[in-house]
């Protein structure tokens, strides 16, 4: 896997999340991800592997990644002084062409990450859409301010309605399509809540080893039996293709 050393342009703390902006003027698609790490081999023997992050935003010159510090890899990225190493954009993103009618975007926790750039793309395509976000509590929900008009739910009720993201989106049925990212149980619930004839695309969050299809570590079960790699065949899947 090839990594590029990129300059950190800016860093923001948004509630419990970190938003890292770096210079990237290459192409990318909403829903795609990068493998990122703090420094080049062999500095990073521990943690050894890079980490996958969805693009949060991209304006053509600057890309940004939204993440939560959960372990040593993300802690090091959070502390990175001026440069990080990133791969090129990877994976299969959201398919937004041919969407007819109003669209719902659902994010759970850090699954909010790819919805910003997706929303930007839908705006550019003139596709009307509403954003629904679910978080554990108000500290995490702080990122919702980046999504004007978004409806918010928190598990503890400290912001928005109490419950999950689906409680913030009670009438999902009236949308033509739903795009969602979050933990697997949330995505499974979104799939159950969506109409069968609805375009429903789910971005999965899986641990990855390589990011380029080689290690077969990031698989998800599919309806036809067996597993497929979320880094190549995903991370965005048609809901009907997934086994759960």
């Amino acid at each position, binding site marked *: *896997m090839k990594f590029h050393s990129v300059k950190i342009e800016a860093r923001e703390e948004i509630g419990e999340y970190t938003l890292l902006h770096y210079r990237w003027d290459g192409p990318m698609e909403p829903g795609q991800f990068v493998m990122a790490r703090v420094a080049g081999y062999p500095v990073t023997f*521990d943690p*050894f592997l890079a980490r996958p992050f969805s693009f949060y935003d991209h304006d053509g010159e600057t890309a940004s990644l939204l993440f939560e510090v959960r372990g040593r890899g993300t802690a090091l990225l959070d502390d990175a002084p001026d440069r990080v190493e990133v791969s090129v954009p990877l994976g299969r993103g959201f398919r937004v062409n041919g969407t007819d009618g109003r669209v719902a975007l659902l994010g759970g926790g850090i699954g909010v990450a790819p919805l910003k750039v997706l929303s930007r793309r839908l705006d550019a395509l003139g596709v009307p859409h509403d954003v629904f976000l679910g978080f554990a509590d108000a500290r995490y929900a702080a990122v919702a301010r980046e999504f004007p008009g978004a409806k918010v739910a928190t598990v503890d009720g400290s912001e928005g309605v109490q419950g999950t993201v689906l409680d913030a989106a009670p009438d999902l049925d009236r949308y033509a399509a739903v795009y969602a990212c979050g933990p697997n149980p949330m995505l499974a619930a979104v799939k159950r809540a969506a109409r069968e004839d609805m375009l429903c695309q789910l971005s999965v969050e899986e641990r990855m*080893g390589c990011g380029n299809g*080689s*290690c*077969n*570590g990031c698989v998800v079960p599919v309806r036809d039996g*067996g*597993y497929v790699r979320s880094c190549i065949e995903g991370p965005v899947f048609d809901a009907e293709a997934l086994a759960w």
Partner: protein
Amino acid sequence: MVVRERIAGEKLAVEMCGITLDTPLIPASGTLAREALSEVEGVYGAILPKTTTPTARSGNPPPRIAETPAGMVNSIGLQNPGVEKFLEGLDAFDLGVPVFVSVAGDTVDEFVALCERLAGDIRISAVELNLSCPNVEHGGLTFCAGPASVQEVIGACRAAIDKPLFTKLTNEGVVANALAAEEAGADALTVINTIPALTIDIERQSVLVRGGLSGPAIKPVALRAVYDVSRSVGIPVIASGGVSTGTDVAEFMLAGATAVQVGTASFVREPEEILREFSDYLDRMGTTASELTGAL
């Protein structure tokens, strides 16, 4: 690319089992996807796709990988589409260098059937037997659980195929198994496979991944195995285990390897960098790859 032109050249070429490799680097089985081939053009002296089995295997349920210091533990479960679909897609692995095919079966008969199936395919230069899978006829012990088992499966495969036959061995009992493999007719030995390992999810207080450890963490173990095996057998040794830098390649060749597999390291850096570092080492020492083998 400029770099590739610069690092190409005869100083990197090695020969084994009558096959010329433009460079001594080979991808370790199961670490190079078809989708990643464009990243390694001109780097590897041969291509070795993921192990194939007689029929499709869906592999193990996730989690399949866990990161460890200087490495990772994996338990993929030989996910693959089965040998027929594998052969249908094999042309995609043609980078103009020899293609080696890794095979695994549940029984000796399955290994033999795979060798017979591959024997007449001119696209394939050599076959690597992955003996790390359980032998269902022997209570689930792996095929490399001991010399008798190694000898049985290699002997049977030897009769089924004329192509060079490589045997991939695990670290445990590696010298005795290497001698048995040579005796049974193996043409080369790949040393070593991943090392049995376990990771635990401390929050859930459960096993995270029970599988095989790979990466720089196992390099000294692999180096010892390559060194010991090279001094015990007369057939070429292909090193595998934690190779991550150009000087790692040189160390394994000095220890006796003729060729060197790169696996887990390719997840965190470009194999081309490893080759460039190795080439720089050769220049600095004023030597060639083939002169390095066993030159301790």
